[in-house]
Each structure stands twice: as structure tokens, then as C-alpha cells.
């Protein structure tokens, strides 16, 4: 891995992580195919340029609709305008899926988060009890209080 992949904080060059890009590229090809280094780099640069292009168009779409924030709908529209209409369906599906995934925590009632907390609390009590039991075994039988340690004299 090159340092550039990790740092990427230079004001001049904001690129995409080559490792991730390379994985995407490789999956499109048969396993025995090689991709020359310069071809890899060029593909990454093209992708960045793609983002630039669609961003510019999205920005314009957003302006025309007199909105202040570039929303997914603007990006989808931009893709269509630029001739990438074929992508729209899949992109939209991925977007919808993402929304579903992030909606996992329900708003009210018995949420999985509450139960997890209860479980965690119970787990914690159990671990305390176990620890106490271990201490009791190691030392003479003593009554331990819940909060602070009682130091032996």
C-alpha cells in the first residue's frame, strides 16, 4: 500500500483508495487477467473525473430547483442528463436499501437497543457476581459490599 492511499490529505490531490478500486476492477474480470499498473491508475483518475462531472451537473440541477443542498434526487437527475440513465435504477435501489439498513433502530416501544441495554446490565451483574465469587475463593470467606472494596486488615 502506498502512503498516498492512507494520507490523502494534501490539498492538491484528493483521490480514491486504490485498494478498494482495484477490488472492484478485479471482480469485473476473469481471475487470470492482469491489470497493468498504469491502467489501474488511469481508471482511478477517470472515476474521480466522473465524480467531478456528475457533481457539477448535480450542482446545476440543484440550483435550477432553487434548493440549497444537493440531494440524492439531484444526483440521479444529473446521471440521466449526462447519459448515465442506465445507472439510475441500480443506484436508486442501493440508496433505498441503505435507507432501510439505517432504519434498523425503531423509534418507540421495545427497541432492540433497550433490550440490549437490559441484557448488558444483567451481564454486568453476573460478571460482578462471578468476580466476587473468585475473590471469595482466593481469600477467606468474607462478605463483600456492592460498591467499594473492603480492604482486608
Amino acid at each position, binding site marked *: 500500500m502506498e502512503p498516498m492511499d492512507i494520507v490523502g490529505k494534501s490539498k492538491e490531490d484528493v483521490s*480514491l483508495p486504490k485498494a478498494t478500486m482495484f477490488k472492484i476492477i478485479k471482480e469485473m474480470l476473469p481471475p*487470470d487477467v492482469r491489470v497493468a499498473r498504469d491502467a489501474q491508475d488511469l481508471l482511478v483518475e477517470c472515476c474521480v473525473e466522473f*465524480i467531478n462531472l456528475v457533481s457539477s451537473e448535480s450542482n446545476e440541477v440543484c440550483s435550477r430547483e432553487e434548493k440549497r443542498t*444537493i440531494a*440524492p434526487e439531484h444526483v440521479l437527475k444529473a446521471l440521466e442528463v449526462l447519459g448515465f440513465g442506465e*445507472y439510475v435504477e441500480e443506484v436508486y435501489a442501493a440508496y433505498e436499501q441503505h435507507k432501510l439498513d439505517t432504519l434498523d433502530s425503531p423509534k418507540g416501544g421495545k427497541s432492540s437497543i433497550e433490550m440490549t441495554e437490559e441484557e448488558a446490565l444483567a451481564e454486568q451483574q453476573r460478571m460482578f457476581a462471578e468476580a466476587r465469587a473468585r475473590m471469595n475463593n482466593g481469600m477467606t470467606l468474607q462478605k463483600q459490599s456492592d460498591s467499594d472494596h473492603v480492604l482486608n486488615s
Partner: protein
Amino acid sequence: MRQAGTYSAILSGGVSGRTGPHSLPLARIKKIMKRSGDDVKMISGEAPIVFSKACELFIEELTQRAWMMTLQGKRRTLHKEDVAAAVMATDIFDFLVEMVSDSNGTQMAPATKSNISVAER
């Protein structure tokens, strides 16, 4: 020469032999978006997600087309020239023409939307 199975898989356009989720980093995408122009508006949190998928599809298409050039040349290594050839052969990749021709060393039409440095080799 031609491996029918592989080739037809590519032609069908639905090679989804994904081994796992490879998402591009959203923060990085957002950075690139912000630098794409002078007066870029605020970007919603969800826009980079849409971009991530779009980029994936874009790279896949470009790679596929480049690979077809490689096959035409009866090679097994995808070279820069194959990417360039794919760009030339595809209308919607017109915006990349300067980028690939720069790499090849020949100047073509001036840039329209992108702000690339004009360097001669």
C-alpha cells in the same frame, strides 16, 4: 483465444461475483465533490452514498469495455491503451477524452467542465 464462458459473462453485463461489500469512502467522495467547482452547494449526507454506487457502476462499465479492447488485441493484460480505446469508443465517456489522450501524449480538444492541467509530454 476466446473463452466463451468468460466473454459471455461480461456481455451479459451482470457479473455479480462480489466477494463482499466494497464501498468507496463517503468522506473522500464528499471532498472530491466539494472541489469539483467554485460554488458547490451544501451536500446532503446521502448524496455521497448515491455517488458511491454510481462510481462502482461507472468503473465496472469502463473496465468491461476496456477489457473488450484487451480481448480484441488477444492479450490477457489490460493496458492503459485499452482504457483509452474504450473511452474513445463510448459517447458518454467523452468527458474523459482529454484525460486519456493526455496520458498518451497527444493533445485533443480543450477541456469543457473539468479543470485538468494541460501538460504536454
